């Protein structure tokens, strides 16, 4: 595309296409192609790619769909996300999908996989039980087997047997995707006025709906366009947003945080796209093993992963420092047990590291932002007025010690 604006306009539409039109079109172009849908947070899309498939993210319907039938399946004290998913399923939005993957992130998603099974959606429904044991020969082997089950199901559909070269190629492409994203994030951290988090969110999220090759191109173009210094720097604080990795915040919420005086320099909205902290090993003889090993050793931290041996509080603090952020906004969806049960622990870690934080809850179709705006605004103001924004202090001290 020819301009950043064009990319943003395209992404705005593509990232929220609840009919998955472009993915369905992609599938229809070749009968051996497979279309998979996966729920948050992470799924190794490489294996779908290697089997001539596309794994598309089903992130809920947000505030874009009036829920009528979906509420029939859920009591009021369960998060909103699965209602949108069921609504889409019942409305036929997901009819051309060959299979569905439900990662093991919580009981609600777990039971949702059962509901899809009962509804007879897709040719297969797989609850992907990510291991909470991180030894290669225990958890790794189990995970290997889980992935094999997905591969077998795909094979049943299109008969394609995955060759290592194909999987290696897929790994390269997705590594590239991840690296591009990280590059842009780094750039955005340094020059946050060049692109809003809202706009970047569209671009990022689009990656869940289109083939990785296409997305890589978009990201390259975006990075290129962002070399130019556009936009006016504002007197904003820098924040990291944490807790919103599954049920997505509505665009209005992201906007509100930015308008209330914050640059969001990191977040976990599209955590799955940046799941690995380093590249998955490329060009190995056993690329599936490489994916497994990467999961065991290179995964980011998340409320969905057992962390006793590698506490996430510490890692969150590291992330905040790396991004030179002034504070953290803990924003979790209502009723989200994983995110909310982690919150006190993470807050404590922040307190011990002297990192300022606030927290609130939202739901994906929340329409009222006034209260949140005030809260975030007060947070931003208080840091600006009564503390040196951390970044400047650090920059000064770094300059002094010639780091």
């Amino acid at each position, binding site marked *: 595309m020819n301009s950043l604006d064009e990319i943003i306009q395209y992404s705005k539409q593509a990232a929220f296409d609840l009919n998955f039109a472009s993915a369905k079109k992609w599938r229809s172009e070749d009968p051996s192609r497979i279309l998979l849908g996966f729920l948050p947070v992470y799924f190794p899309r490489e294996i779908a790619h290697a089997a001539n498939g596309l794994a598309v993210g089903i992130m809920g319907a947000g505030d874009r769909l009036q829920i009528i039938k979906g509420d029939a399946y859920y009591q009021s004290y369960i998060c909103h996300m699965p209602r949108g998913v069921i609504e889409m399923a019942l409305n036929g939005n997901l009819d051309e999908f060959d299979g569905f993957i439900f990662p093991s992130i919580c009981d609600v998603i777990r039971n949702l996989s059962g509901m899809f099974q009962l509804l007879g959606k897709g040719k297969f429904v797989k*609850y992907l039980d990510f291991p909470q044991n991180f030894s290669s020969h225990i958890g790794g082997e189990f995970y290997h087997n889980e992935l094999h089950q997905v591969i077998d199901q795909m094979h049943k559909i299109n008969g394609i047997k995955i060759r290592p070269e194909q999987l290696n190629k897929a790994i390269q492409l997705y590594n590239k995707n991840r690296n591009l994203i990280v590059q842009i994030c780094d750039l955005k951290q340094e020059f946050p006025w060049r692109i809003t988090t809202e706009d970047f969110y569209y671009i990022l999220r689009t990656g869940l709906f289109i083939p990785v090759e296409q997305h890589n191109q978009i990201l390259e173009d975006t990075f290129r366009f962002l070399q130019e210094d556009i936009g006016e720097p504002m007197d904003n604080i820098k924040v990291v947003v944490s807790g919103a990795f599954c049920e997505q915040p509505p665009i209005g919420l992201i906007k509100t945080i930015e308008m209330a005086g914050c640059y969001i320099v990191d977040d976990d909205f599209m955590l799955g796209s940046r799941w690995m902290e380093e590249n998955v090993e490329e060009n190995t003889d056993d690329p599936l093993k490489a994916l497994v090993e990467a999961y065991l050793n290179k995964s980011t931290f998340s409320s969905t992963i057992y962390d006793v041996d590698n506490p996430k509080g510490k890692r969150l603090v590291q992330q905040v420092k790396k991004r030179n952020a002034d504070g953290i906004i803990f924003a979790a969806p209502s009723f989200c047990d994983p995110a909310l049960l982690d919150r*006190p622990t993470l807050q404590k870690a922040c307190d011990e590291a002297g990192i300022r934080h606030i927290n609130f809850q939202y739901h994906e179709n929340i329409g009222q932002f006034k209260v949140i705006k005030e809260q975030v605004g007060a947070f931003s103001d208080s840091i600006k007025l009564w503390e040196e924004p951390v970044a400047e202090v650090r920059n000064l001290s770094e300059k002094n010690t010639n780091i």
Partner: protein
Amino acid sequence: MPDKQVAKEQSMILQKNMLARLFKELSTAKGTGKKVVYTFVPGNLSELILAFDMLPVYPEINALQSGMRKKSRDFIRDAEKAGHSEDVCTYVKCDIGMMLNGNIGPTGEKLPDPDLLLLSYTGCFTFMKWFENLERLYPGVQVAMLHTPYQEGGKITPEMVQYMVKQLKEEVIPKMEKVSGKKFDQTKLAEILENSRKSQDLITQIFDSTKNKPSPIDAYFAGVYYIGPINVGFRGTVEAVEYYQELYNEVQNRVEKGLGPVTPEGEIEEERFRLVVEGPPNWTHFREFWSLFYNMGAVIVASSYTKVGGVYDWGFRHNPQKPLESLAEYCMNCYTNLNLTQRIDLLEKCIKDYQADGFLINSIKSCNSFSAGQLFMMRILEDKLGIPVGFIESDLVDPRYFSYSNIKNRLDSFFQMLDQRKIIQKQQEIAT
């Protein structure tokens, strides 16, 4: 009738003694040097804990006890003051609150700190978060993670068993050896498992007695007392076998005499409705909640909650010949680790086998594992079996979410509904 009274009390006395002994041991654990393992009811590896001569503590049981003793409101409030959200599982909050208040157990004595957190991650994602939280509250405590795979495909595969066996061999047992200072004794475990088998046979028969009309027991409210020994660390002991044998005899006695279940207020006069109930009970208003049923002559002939600590209906038993494999299978076979289809099948079996008049769901705000999907399950059972369904809502241990008048109103309507249908059915029978 004095004989009967004494006989009935006997099983209760046995259970009381078992628990009293356990709590005594717990209170003196630091002195005697016995090690304490905190773990969960679903996927509880009592036999393994016993094989290492360690003592079990179940935070879920602590929480429900706090609920029944009316302490949970304050505990939850304290946990919320400490930063927890209103939305999260109230068992966790109650436990944390109890901890913050000195961790005093039901006997009034302080419960010992854990030497090992056995995170049997079975059927409930929140368990993992719970012990991650506890690990921070007991710095330096050992944590053993046992990840129980979900029966997503409705069956247990060899790979799933292998995954668990390896975890047992390389993660759980070594940590238990380290904590207890004893070596793993497979023979001892096999002996213990033999006792488990016996207890499992007996409890299956006990819960099967509801086939009778009238049913001699209530398989939900009284049921939670019956599953006590098998779920709180005694499965595998000789005492548990004795208890279940005694209980079985008492139940048989009632069957022979054609008697209905005993309630806190005496015997039920007339069995008017037979129900299958899905979902945990409310603990804060347990007695009142129960009374809403027995006052209407409603007897619960089967409940899914009594199977959270293990489903034995389909024939699973621990196998002393394959100790670790059967521990693994046991875990995977707990109710909340079954997929929705299996749960529906199990409920359907209960409804049919025990000739239920109605199906009731007590939907618990705190428990996503049970609750997410219940509405769908209810619809499916209603359509498939043509059985009247009822739906009430409450919580485990947060008294703010139990509204007696609302629940009574819904139950009244439900029972009246069942009543009307019975009349119609009778009329139709007469007509044909």
